[in-house]
């Protein structure tokens, strides 16, 4: 029904365009001299089509949103109060399904009650009326818009300005979506986090050193909700990741920017950047199947107890993931350092490495710091690698060879369990998410500020 209606409407819109087009061409007179018109004929067509389509589609959307609840209302109007008073949520749904099955002619296998038959009869009647009314109203709205707009088509009519205004409004609405997303993120997490803080005080959450939310179906806050072990785990994993990614990434950037032949650079740079495009779940599985067992084996031969899933495994693999991130950002920054600085240093007799270490890097330092902060924010928000490879043990300890848990892992764990969505065990995920959002937002703002400021310095 709806698909048919949409098809009819689209056809109507196409016809409206043609009508606007041909009317304006007629106005232009013989030889299609569109100079006598204010706008080109296409704009008249587009305007008539807009007037035909937009109101009709809006009515259709609203109608479809409202219709189901009206029909339900009709069903319950026909059910005696003595019956409907005894219904709970599930049996209400069953009753609605049965009435709809009878109304559609499919029938039910047992003998339906009299009130069900009556309700079904009413429902069938209103469904038929409703669908005809919808058809009539939507199409007449389309036709009305068409006729109204067509009447306005004249030589002096400023069709182009109106169409362009409509386009402008459409573009503004689209760029509002990004704002709405941010507002949605902040508001949804804030409201759910506030729910959570009704169960657990913010002081206990932000300064508690024990994480053990327990499992509760009663909806009470049982166990302890201290975020510090999770933050500590996050910092440990990110620290390991950065101590892998920053030296390697920075050296890659330096070598490719300053030493490598154009040939090597042309294939090595994109090959290393492939690492940035690989989904994080693949890194997680890689950590679990290859790197974890490898570290465990090394630990056994050296005599240290290394867990296969540990802060070290997760951090190391995350480091591999961040390498291209660090290297391409640093590469951009290093190549932006002006030639004159290098030439000056080389001219005074410094070797290439001395020039890099004592002239280029200090000049690039602010930018590299920005890249570093962006890498930290990436590491802090990374989820799948730590879910698979960090081992999930939310304890405060400083041993990188043992399992840890991070903020992101805990969000996944608390929301994918069997807990009720309104229980503190699930709501805590939003408090954690809000914390994560604020941390990464802060890091990004500082990093973007530094990078931008640095760019201006040499421009």
């Amino acid at each position: 029904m709806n698909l048919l209606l949409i098809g009819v409407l689209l056809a109507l819109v196409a016809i409206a365009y043609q009508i606007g087009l041909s009317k304006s061409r007629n106005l232009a007179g013989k030889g299609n001299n569109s100079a006598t018109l204010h706008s080109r004929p296409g704009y008249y067509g587009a305007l008539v089509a807009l007037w035909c389509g937009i109101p009709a589609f809006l009515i259709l959307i609203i109608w479809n949103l409202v219709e189901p609840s009206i029909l339900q209302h009709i069903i319950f109007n026909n059910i005696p109060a003595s019956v409907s008073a005894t219904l709970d949520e599930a049996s209400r749904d069953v009753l609605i399904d049965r009435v709809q099955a009878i109304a559609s002619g499919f029938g039910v296998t047992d003998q339906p009650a009299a009130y069900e038959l009556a309700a079904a009869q009413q429902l069938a009647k209103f469904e038929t009326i409703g669908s005809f009314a919808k058809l009539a109203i939507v199409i007449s709205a389309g036709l009305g818009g068409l006729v109204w707009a067509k009447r306005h088509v004249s030589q002096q009519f400023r069709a182009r300005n109106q169409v362009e205004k409509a386009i402008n409004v459409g573009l503004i609405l689209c760029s509002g979506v990004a704002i709405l997303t941010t507002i949605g993120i902040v508001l949804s997490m804030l409201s759910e986090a506030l729910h959570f803080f009704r169960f657990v005080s913010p002081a206990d959450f932000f300064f508690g050193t024990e994480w053990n939310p327990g499992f509760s179906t009663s909806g009470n806050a049982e166990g302890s909700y201290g975020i510090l072990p999770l933050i500590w785990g996050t910092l440990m994993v990110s620290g390991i990741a950065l101590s892998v990614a920053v030296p390697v990434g920075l050296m890659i950037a330096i070598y490719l920017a300053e030493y490598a032949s154009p040939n090597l650079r042309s294939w090595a740079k994109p090959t290393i950047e492939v690492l940035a495009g690989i989904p994080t779940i693949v890194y997680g599985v890689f950590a679990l199947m290859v790197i974890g067992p490898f570290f465990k084996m090394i630990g056994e031969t050296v005599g240290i107890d290394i867990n296969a899933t540990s802060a070290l495994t997760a951090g190391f693999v995350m480091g591999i993931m961040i390498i291209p991130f660090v290297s391409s950002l640093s590469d951009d920054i290093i190549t932006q350092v002006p030639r004159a600085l290098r030439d000056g240093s080389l001219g005074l007799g410094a070797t290439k490495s001395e020039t890099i270490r004592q002239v280029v890097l200090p000049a690039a330092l602010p930018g590299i710091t920005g890249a570093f902060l962006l890498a930290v924010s990436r590491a802090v928000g990374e989820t799948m690698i730590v879910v698979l490879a960090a081992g999930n043990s939310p304890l405060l300890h400083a041993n990188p060879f043992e399992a840890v848990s991070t903020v992101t892992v805990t969000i996944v764990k608390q929301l994918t369990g069997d807990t009720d969505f309104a229980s503190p065990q699930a709501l805590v995920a939003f408090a954690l998410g809000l914390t994560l959002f604020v941390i990464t937002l802060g890091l990004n703002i500082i990093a973007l500020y530094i990078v931008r400021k640095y760019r201006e310095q040499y421009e």
Partner: protein
Amino acid sequence: MSSNTSPLDQNVLDPQVAAEQRKKRIQNSLAKRHRKEKAFRFAGFSAVMIGLAFVALLFGSILAKGLPSFWQSSMTVPVYFDPTIINVGAKPKPIAGETPAHFEERLVAWQTEMGMVDWDALIVNGIVAKDPALESQRDYLNSIYTSSEAYRLRDMVLENPSLIGTKDEIKFLADANVDVWLAGNIDRSLPDDQQQLDLEVRQIADQLKAKGIIENTFNTNLFVSPDSRSSPATSGLAGAFMGSLFMMLIVIIISIPIGVASAIYLEEFAPKNIMTDIIEVNINNLAAVPSIVFGLLGAAIFIGWMHLPLSAPLVGGLVLSLMTLPTVIITTRASLKAVPPSIRQAALGLGASKVQTVFHHVLPLALPGIMTGSIIGVAHALGETAPLLLIGMSAFVASVPATPLDQATALPVQVYLWQGNELRNFFEGRTAAAIIVLLALMIGLNSLAIWLRKKFEVRW
């Protein structure tokens, strides 16, 4: 002290000696500096090699683990649809004056009766027909093939009851544990109590393999079947693939038009004021928000507030669209910026309006860049896992979704689910195979983007 003064003394004494010594000192320090230079250069080169080695290790290990799983043990045996075993009445037909509900009730009763038939007996008969030596070991043969094959026979007959009484050669998949045993993915020297299969079954499997009845054939199930828990050997990616496809379609429908439109507005039309500054900062930050936060947004708004169905590709697609939006906006703005202002000035100078300039001249020139950016954004969304876990897409779904409102998983989520399966030595290969499929799709999308850029790129 002495080391400081002695050259000076010598300098005074004999300028020639002093010059010689200075030269030597410089040479020494030069040698040291050159050594340092070499070491630094070598460190840089090693870093590049380490980076390349990681790429090679990642792809090498995934390929090594995953490629064998594209082949799987199976056997083709003659099946006789024995009417004495399939002892069920004819398929019911609608009777005049009966409601559709009553007819369906009778149809379901007939289907249930069909389900009670001992389909396994048909398969076992087939295996025995191929290798009569197994007649005495019929009881063990049930464990050779995977359990869902009996249901497959049932579904074949349900669809076409005229099969009863006929004979056909049908390919059956070996049980997952048999496949693990034959592929050597389990230590054959383990004692009986640690083996997943009975001694007899293992012997029969080896026998059938030696006789060439069990063969290693291409694993088509990986591509055409949904996930399965009761019968791991048939588990495939079809359900996850369709789920991902629906989500990508939603991402393309939502994030690309909206993203391109907002980029056009911000780059070409927006006045420079506080409002547009806020939007700009906001989009840059949105691009760096961890993906899991978008999952929380989806859980709170689409599921908690709007009550959209859990595990549906519709919700997943919406979440991924919001996640991809900033990427599309940023790349579109970059390619709009790359169109030289002279194009705009020429169009405006000839009397085009602002909208005409943008849509008739700037946008077509920026299109290759926009397409490249959008495809890369979609490829990124294809590989995203974390936000999908939070909106219930990690549920086990044993069917292929037909609409975006059905329950489904996605390819990366299927990887996540399989790596956690208890039947480790079977699913490790499947996990890697799923990763290969996922990476192949992503590489395909990215190559398309690179090809588009190479073909249509205009350098100004």
